[in-house]
């Protein structure tokens, strides 16, 4: 088990390197950088006084070096103007737009991003698990049809639109403001139970909105898996021997069907993270989403590169967790490597 985990961790390192390179490459795709854009803007307005300062800044952030060197400096594999000072050394870069270190800009939002994605994953599993079992054991019942229909609609509705519609409904029918992290009256107030409750209430809608599409997909997956298992011989045998239906279900077919269900976290997490970004923009949640959008629009490269890398790492960690869970649940996976040798 420990060996499996160790290998799994080591395998992440090259992936991380590739991802960080890809991220940096994509961010650097647009011509120029934040400061050279500023310079050309200043030149256009005829102002030349601060150009020297900006030129100094360009050198300061190594923006005048070739691409590969800039990447290596950013990661911290190559000495920059201040020696080794990159991601590996804990320096996340500088946000030109906010004129503060990236750490300070995104710091407060990281926790909420992780929190809301975790909540969405939990939501997906807690909702799709019972519904999937219900749909499979009572195939072609009204409930099954109803959930299938709901699932299809959940799949078809883009989550940011769902967010908009829900906000509209809550606003018009229930007179609730569900945008933002908390009721406006608590902003700036010290933490209290009421404030915490308000935050919780405001988390519910985004969680549902982010999780809907994933839930729909999961219900379909679990239903199909379980249906496959339910028609197998061993189920018939157990039933013939007089096993109670509920015990039979939990003991055998469910355990088999659970496997792909957990392995699916790999597909689920990227879509959830994608969803959380756009939903946060729509619902005005203080996650990394809105910051990423504004950073991309103003070409604030270190900030957007860091956020992109962060969400990618978030999905990688999610997959790691799913693999570890799978290894715990299924001895075939944990021992699989050994057998093949």
């Amino acid at each position, binding site marked *: 088990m420990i060996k499996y985990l160790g290998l799994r961790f080591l395998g992440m390192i090259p*992936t991380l390197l590739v991802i960080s390179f890809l991220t940096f490459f994509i961010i650097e795709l647009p*011509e120029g950088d934040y400061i050279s854009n500023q310079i050309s803007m200043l030149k256009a307005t005829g102002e030349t006084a601060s150009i020297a300062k900006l030129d100094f800044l360009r050198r300061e952030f190594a923006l005048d070096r070739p691409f590969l060197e800039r990447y290596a400096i950013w990661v911290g594999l190559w000495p920059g103007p201040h020696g080794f000072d990159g991601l590996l050394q804990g320096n996340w870069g500088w946000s030109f737009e906010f004129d503060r270190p990236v750490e300070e800009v995104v710091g407060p939002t990281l926790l909420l991003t992780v929190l809301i994605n975790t909540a969405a994953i939990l939501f997906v599993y807690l909702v799709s698990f019972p519904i999937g079992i219900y749909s499979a054991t009572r195939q072609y019942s009204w409930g099954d049809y109803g959930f299938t229909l709901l699932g299809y609609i959940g799949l078809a509705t883009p989550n940011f639109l769902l967010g908009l519609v829900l906000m509209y409904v809550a606003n018009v029918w229930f007179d609730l403001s569900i945008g933002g992290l908390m009721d406006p009256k608590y902003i700036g107030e010290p933490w209290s139970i009421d404030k915490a409750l308000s935050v919780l209430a405001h988390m519910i809608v985004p969680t549902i909105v982010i999780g809907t599409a994933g839930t729909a997909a999961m219900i379909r997956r679990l239903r199909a898996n379980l249906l496959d298992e339910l028609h197998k011989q061993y189920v018939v045998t157990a039933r013939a021997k007089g096993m109670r239906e509920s015990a039979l279900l939990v003991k055998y077919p469910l355990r088999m069907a659970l496997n792909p269900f957990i392995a699916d976290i790999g597909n689920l997490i990227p879509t959830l993270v994608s969803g959380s970004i756009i939903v946060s923009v729509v619902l005005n949640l203080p996650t990394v989403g809105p910051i990423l959008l504004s950073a991309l629009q103003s070409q604030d490269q270190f900030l*957007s590169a860091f956020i992109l890398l962060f969400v990618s790492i978030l999905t990688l960690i999610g997959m790691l967790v799913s693999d570890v869970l799978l290894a715990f649940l299924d001895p075939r996976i944990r021992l699989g490597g050994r057998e093949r040798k």
Partner: protein
Amino acid sequence: MSNERHETPQEPEHYVNNDPFDPTSVERLTEEQERYFLASQWKIMWWKFRRHRLAKWSAVILILFYLCVPFAEVIAPYKPSQRQSNFLYAPPQAVHLFDGGKWVGPFVYGLKAQVDLAQMRWVYEVDKSEVQPLRFLCKGEPYDFWGFIPARFHLVCPAKDGTFFLVGTDRLGRDLFSGIIYGARLSLTIGIIGIIISMSLGILLGGLAGYFGGIIDSLIQRVIEIMRSLPELPLWMALSAALPVTWSPVWIYFGLTIILGLLDWPGLARAVRSKLLSLREEEYAQAAVMMGAKPRRIITKHLLPGFTSHLIASASLSIPSMILGETALSFLNLGLRRPAVSWGVLLNEAQNISVVTIYPWLMAPVIPIIIVVLAFNFLGDGLRDAADPYK
């Protein structure tokens, strides 16, 4: 034929019938079976697909929607960027048939605009005395059909000096219904072009990995794994933010399709690879190898036909994600921009919740999006079931 037994045992006469043998005489096939066994693979698929009622109707709906692509100018009563300064944020005009109990045919009541200075918004009153009968197959707003044939023919036009806003107007008085019709042009084709790009990439890379195996396979596999673990939307956002602002809408459109297609291929490549791996072991493929056929010929002549149907099915399942991707990007101001009109661009107006609360019809483009995505999903399900006709 003699069946009599002779007294003395003799060698029985060896009997050979000289008549031509008709194999069907042993096992008669009904006409139904005959038709089935003689039909080509694609014909059987079509039969099987036809039985999937939901998929069939989805296909019909999609065809109707795609008719907007070539004929947008004719279907839409207005041009998408035509401003009507007297009708800013006009609400949808319902189509009536009876005026005060009297049959008039399809018509709309006139709208009277008033400014509500207390709340700083436009208020419209339905003027019941003004009946504006709709005209059909009529001459209306002039336009250039496909951009170069001047014409005036419309399916439906408002009455003379009247208005016809089926789903209302936006902040500049642009008709939303016309916007949706024109928007279908970009929103619906972006999925098709994107899927063509992603399919070619998927077939090429998946084919290479599946056919050659070895180092190429494991390299491509790793790339696929990494690509699949990345969240799509932030990458799309970053890439489309990289499109130069100076580009014309046409170039932005093509740039977007390439971006959407570039990140979508891993799923398809994976399907191609696993299918190729299993087909490669089939006897007919082995025979072709033994006879010295070139890889290119084996892949295109022997292996590809074996899973084209699967490819089409999985492609139709990934078109919706591209349509949604474009919508999301345009909604966030990162994709298409005016004067280009797509459903996402139209939804851009609905970004502000306070605006949406007052003018909820701005969310109308959601409805065609949901219908199209649902239809593609059902169609894909039907195609997937039909893709294995011999099962």
